[in-house]
């Protein structure tokens, strides 16, 4: 469904991705783990078109997308819940969700999807008319995921959905992520919290300073001594 082939991304002169290749198949949860500054966020931003690779190609459902602007990539069916949530602080929760559905015109179905999001995250229902900036961190995370779902993506990119959340909430969010996947959405999940990510993913990639250093079925990666030592505290 998604193929990255030898992607090189730069921030001016900083070579952030040095030939990253990965694939995500339809129906999968694939996780991309790695320590701070490895290039995970850069990878997601390159897929979603906020950054463009200097070399390499990206294909989504067979179509090359690496030169498309971000808003067109969203239209193709890729949606991203960005690092740091990036909620529109001055817009209400409802408006944030409506913006998630910006590319769509099927009003009735949008309303249904909003219902579905509020069933996933009942907290959002009580806060619909509140400004996004007034939500707690956990609520903002729920809103970011909900907003990303509102475009009915076929591929959902999640950047550290567990960041800054209490353990109980982390479990809850990951249950929901699995739930979303079971309902048919393919997911590429970036996480620092390797343990939880590997426990729900089908396959995993491990990244270090701009290169993929390990890949395989999640269980296998979880068991590898390299990962146990580096990310799971031995």
């Amino acid at each position: 469904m998604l193929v990255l082939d030898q992607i090189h991304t730069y921030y001016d002169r900083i070579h952030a991705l040095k030939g990253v290749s990965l694939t995500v198949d339809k129906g999968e949860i694939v996780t991309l783990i790695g320590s701070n500054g490895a290039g995970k966020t850069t990878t997601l931003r390159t897929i979603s078109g906020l950054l463009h690779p200097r070399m390499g190609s990206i294909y989504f459902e067979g179509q090359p997308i690496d030169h498309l602007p971000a808003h067109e990539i969203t239209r193709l069916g890729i949606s991203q819940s960005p690092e740091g949530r990036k909620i529109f602080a001055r817009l209400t929760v409802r408006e944030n969700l409506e913006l998630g559905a910006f590319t769509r015109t099927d009003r009735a179905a949008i309303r249904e999807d909003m219902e579905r999001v509020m069933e996933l995250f009942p907290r959002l229902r009580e806060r619909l008319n509140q400004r996004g900036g007034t939500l707690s961190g956990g609520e903002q995370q729920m809103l970011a995921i909900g907003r990303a779902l509102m475009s009915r993506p076929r591929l959902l990119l999640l950047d550290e959905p567990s960041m800054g959340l209490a353990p109980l909430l982390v479990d809850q969010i990951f249950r929901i992520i699995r739930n979303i996947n079971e309902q048919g959405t393919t997911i590429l999940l970036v996480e620092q919290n390797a343990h939880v990510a590997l426990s729900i993913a089908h396959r995993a990639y491990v990244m270090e300073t701009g290169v993929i250093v390990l890949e395989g079925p999640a269980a296998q990666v979880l068991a590898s001594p390299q990962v146990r030592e580096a990310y799971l505290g031995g």
Partner: protein
Amino acid sequence: MAVTTYSSTSVRFRQKTTTRWLVRGLGVLILALVAWRVVTVGLAEGYPATFWMSQLINGLVLGGVYALVALGYTLVYGILLMINFAHGDVMMIGGFTGFFALQFFMALGWLQGPAALVALALILIVAAGMFGSVLTGVTLERVAYRPLRGAPRLVPLISAIGASLFLQYSVLLIFGVSPRVYQKPALIEGGFRAGGVFVPYTGLIIFVTSLFLMLMLYLIVQRTKLGRAMRAVAEDKGTAALMGIDVDRVIVFTFILGSALAGAAGVMLGFHNTVVKFNSGFIPGLKAFTAAVLGGIGNIPGAMVGALLLGVIEAIGPSALGIPTEYKDIIAFTVLVLILIFRPSGLLGEVVSEKRA
């Protein structure tokens, strides 16, 4: 788009405290001077209440027009963090377009016809002004600003000043220095008396039209999908793009809205001042900018409030301070200096911090 934008205002000059107190002292001095003039001159004259009322009405009329222009500054600033210094000249182009439409309907005889025809012609004249300004504003965005996006913030500002001069001197070249006279249709000459206060028809029409356009703008920004997209782009362009919003299109739409309002203002100012010429947009543009800063730049209700307030201050000021009306422009710019000294974020502007939960 309700408020000032993030990164801009949070970057503060770190002045030395002594300098700051000197500047504050100067501000206090100006305020004291103003108060002294009001007491010794303005109040001592003993003007009747009806006099002040009619000044107030003048102020509101002019303030309404300033508001339309101020909104253009504030909309563009809200999205691009850029002062579109050519905006006053965009308004002037609308004034010219409106003037030619006026000539046209004059020649057709519509403006001498029955009231309904006059009203229709006036609406079409305003629409023509809006069209002329929109064309200008959109072209400027495309040619003078878009190529500079991502450049340091001073760069598009300089481009805007260049665009301003370009527009003024192009019009000077084509139409010469002599002003074009806006001839009012006989039907809207004169006015009526309400409680001893004279209300001119033109003023009333201008004020009502301004309020109507402001309401339309408010509804577009707050209630439509495109308005929502504008507010999203104002907050965070990258994330807005992730929503599938074509940021460039939203920016163009913002210029269309701002320029349309300016075009309407240009026509109404033409009727108000009875003339339009190549530099007619300059001073009103600066005043509308002052109004936008007074309300809090980037803030839509702020631009409206700031402009009405500025219009009133400017109308009442000369009598209250005993300044000859030829010098009344000094009042608006004194207001600008005072806001920049005491409340740079404006009346309704939030003192913004970068923090987010």
